[in-house]
C-alpha cells in the first residue's frame, strides 16, 4: 500500500534537564488516524507541541503536507489554517466566558464556522438545556467539558489535519465513543485527504479508530507501523508452566504466573516454539502496546 506523509519528522531533538526527545525519522501517513502511545513523560506531548508549533526551539525538521516547512506553517495562513490542535490544558484564558471563547476563535481562524461550532457543542452535550450558561467562565468547566469545547473549536474549522493531545482521557465512555465517531467522520469527509494524530493512554477505547501507531518510550520511538502490520509482526502466545523455560528465550516479552505464562513473540520466532503445547493468538493493539512498552521501559519491577 502506497501512502504519503501528512507530517514528516526528521532528526528532531529537544533537550530538557533530565529528558531528551530524539526522533530520527517518523512519518505520519496521510488519510489515516495515528495514535502516539507511551508512558507518562515519554515525550508524546513534547512531540505533538513541536508539530503544532507550540514549541519552536528544537533541532531537526518537520515537513507538513509533503512540502511545507515549519516556517511556512508560521507564515503561510493556508498551512496554519489547515491544522487544528487540542491540548490537555486550555488555550482559552481562564476568565473568559463561553461567549468570549467563541468570539476569539472567530477572530483567530479564517474558516471558523460559528453555526457549526454551536451545532457541535450541542452534539457533544456541552449545550444541554439549562445546564449550560453562556456566561459561564471557561475556568469553571470540568476537564471533560473543556476538552469538548476545544474539540468543537477545531471541528468548526476547515482543516486537513487534527493534532490532539490526550483527547480521550477526560471524556466519559459515552463521549469517548462519540470521539471515535468524530474521528471516523472526519477521515471520511474527504476520502484520503484528512488525517488525525492523537496521543492516548486509552489504547483499548481507541483501537477501532487507530490505523497507525508510534510507541514512544523515554524520548525514543521504539515501535511504529500500521496496526494490521504489527498484528502480523507479533503473535500472542500462552502456555503452561512446564514450557515456560523453553519458550521464554524466544519470547519478545512475557509475564508468568503460577499456572503458566503469556506474552508477545515475534512471528518470525514462532516456528522455534513448535512442538510445545502453546496457544497462538493474533494480538490486540493493547497487547502489542503493553509488550513493547514493557520491553522498553526504564521503570523497574516490570
Amino acid at each position: 500500500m502506497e501512502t504519503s506523509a501528512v507530517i514528516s519528522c526528521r532528526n528532531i531533538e529537544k533537550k530538557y534537564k533530565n529528558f531528551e526527545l530524539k526522533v530520527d525519522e517518523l512519518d505520519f501517513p496521510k488519510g489515516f488516524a495515528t495514535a502516539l502511545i507511551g508512558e507518562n513523560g515519554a515525550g508524546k506531548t513534547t512531540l505533538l507541541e513541536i508539530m503544532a508549533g507550540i514549541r519552536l526551539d528544537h533541532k531537526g525538521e518537520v515537513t507538513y503536507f509533503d512540502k511545507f516547512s515549519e516556517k511556512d506553517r508560521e507564515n503561510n495562513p493556508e498551512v496554519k489554517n489547515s491544522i487544528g490542535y487540542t491540548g490537555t490544558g486550555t488555550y482559552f484564558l481562564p476568565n473568559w466566558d463561553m461567549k468570549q471563547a467563541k468570539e476569539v476563535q472567530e477572530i483567530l481562524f479564517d474558516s471558523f464556522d460559528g453555526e457549526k461550532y454551536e451545532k457541535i457543542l450541542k452534539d457533544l452535550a456541552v449545550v444541554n438545556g439549562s445546564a449550560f450558561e453562556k456566561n459561564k467562565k471557561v475556568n469553571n468547566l470540568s476537564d471533560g467539558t473543556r476538552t469538548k469545547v476545544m474539540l468543537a473549536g477545531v471541528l468548526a474549522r476547515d482543516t486537513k489535519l487534527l493534532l490532539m493531545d490526550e483527547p480521550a482521557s477526560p471524556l466519559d465512555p459515552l463521549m469517548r465513543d462519540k470521539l471515535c465517531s468524530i474521528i471516523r467522520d472526519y477521515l471520511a469527509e474527504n476520502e484520503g485527504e484528512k488525517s488525525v494524530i492523537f496521543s492516548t493512554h486509552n489504547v483499548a477505547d481507541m483501537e477501532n479508530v487507530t490505523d497507525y501507531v508510534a510507541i514512544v518510550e523515554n524520548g525514543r520511538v521504539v515501535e511504529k507501523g500500521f496496526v494490521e502490520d504489527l498484528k502480523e509482526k507479533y503473535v500472542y502466545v500462552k502456555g503452561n508452566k512446564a514450557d515456560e523455560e523453553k519458550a521464554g528465550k524466544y519470547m519478545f516479552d512475557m509475564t508468568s504466573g503460577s499456572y503458566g505464562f503469556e506474552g508477545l513473540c515475534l512471528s518470525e520466532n514462532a516456528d522455534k516454539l513448535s512442538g510445545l503445547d502453546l496457544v497462538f493468538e493474533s494480538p490486540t493493539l493493547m497487547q502489542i502496546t503493553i509488550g513493547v512498552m514493557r520491553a522498553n521501559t526504564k521503570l523497574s519491577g516490570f
Partner: protein
Amino acid sequence: MIISQSSGVPIYQQISDSFRNDILEGKYEEGAYLPSIRGLAKELKISVITTIKAYEQLESEGLVTAVQGKGYYVNAQDGEMLREQHQRKVEGALLEAIKYAKIAGMSDSELTDTLNTLLKFAEE
C-alpha cells in the same frame, strides 16, 4: 454486515468474507464499486486500515481491482473461477461435517448415508 469483535476471526477477514460471498452470489455487478474505504470504516465503526486490509485481500484473490483515488471495483467473474470458489466452499463445509461426524462417533458409511439421504431430500 455483522462484525463480531469476539468471534476469534479477524475483523478484516469477516469483512472480506462478507464481500466475497456477495460478489460470488452476483450481488455486485461487474464494474460496480465497493463502498469507499473510509465510508465503510465509519459505518462499521472500525479502523480505516482494517477496511483496507479486507479490500486488499479481495484484490489479491482477483475479485476486485484497485484504482488509485477511486476505490475498488468488482471484476468480471469468469465461470471457471466461480466454480472453483464454490467448490472450495463445498469442500470446506464437508470437512466441517466430517469433523462433527468424528466427534459424534459416526462411521464413514453412516456419514455417506446421511449425505445421500439429504441429497434425496434436496432433490424433492
